[in-house]
């Protein structure tokens, strides 16, 4: 039973690391602001959820795991809100023509 729980925790941690890695790759390789946001916010939410779920399962049913669950819920609420705010600001600046035209592409693309 212990071994099965350990394997499940390892799988959760590994999947969380995968999502974080995909988010960073998207942040570094995507061509403009909106696609970068698409990569990072979604993968960050998923990665944080999986990693925190693994840590909660590792800790068991304690006060600390309740605290971690609180952080997880907070991240799940605030991350899409922040992404919405950034996207709105970026879109307004794009509509106003304030963004650089060749700023959409850079040397990594």
């Amino acid at each position, binding site marked *: 039973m212990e071994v099965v729980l350990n394997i499940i925790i390892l799988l959760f941690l590994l999947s969380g690391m995968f999502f*974080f890695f995909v988010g960073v790759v998207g942040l*570094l390789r995507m061509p403009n602001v909106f696609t970068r946001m698409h990569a990072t916010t979604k993968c960050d939410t998923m990665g944080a959820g999986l990693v925190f779920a693994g840590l909660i399962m590792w800790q068991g049913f304690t006060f600390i795991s309740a605290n971690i669950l609180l952080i997880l819920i907070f991240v799940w609420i605030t991350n899409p809100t922040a992404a919405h705010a950034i996207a709105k600001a970026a879109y307004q600046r794009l509509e106003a023509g304030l963004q650089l035209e060749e700023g959409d592409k850079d040397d990594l693309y």
Partner: protein
Amino acid sequence: MIETAVLIACIILVLLTFAGLYRAIVGPSVEDRIVAINMIATKVTAIIVMIALLTNQKFFVDVALVYALLGFITTIGLAKLLMKGKLGKWK
């Protein structure tokens, strides 16, 4: 066994954070930097929780909660500053 796995995950997260810091430094527009800083805040929250569990310092989890709050407030404030040009009331 799990301690080693969490330690390795912590190290990987630190490396990924430094990789994302590239976009925050080089990023061609302001929004790229804000997106990168938002991502770094999420990752550092996870790192703080892992360190709290690894070192058995239980109150570090509250530090992680405060850090997540600070990252959210920073992102919202910077986005509002970009939209309005100032940090006043919403009109």
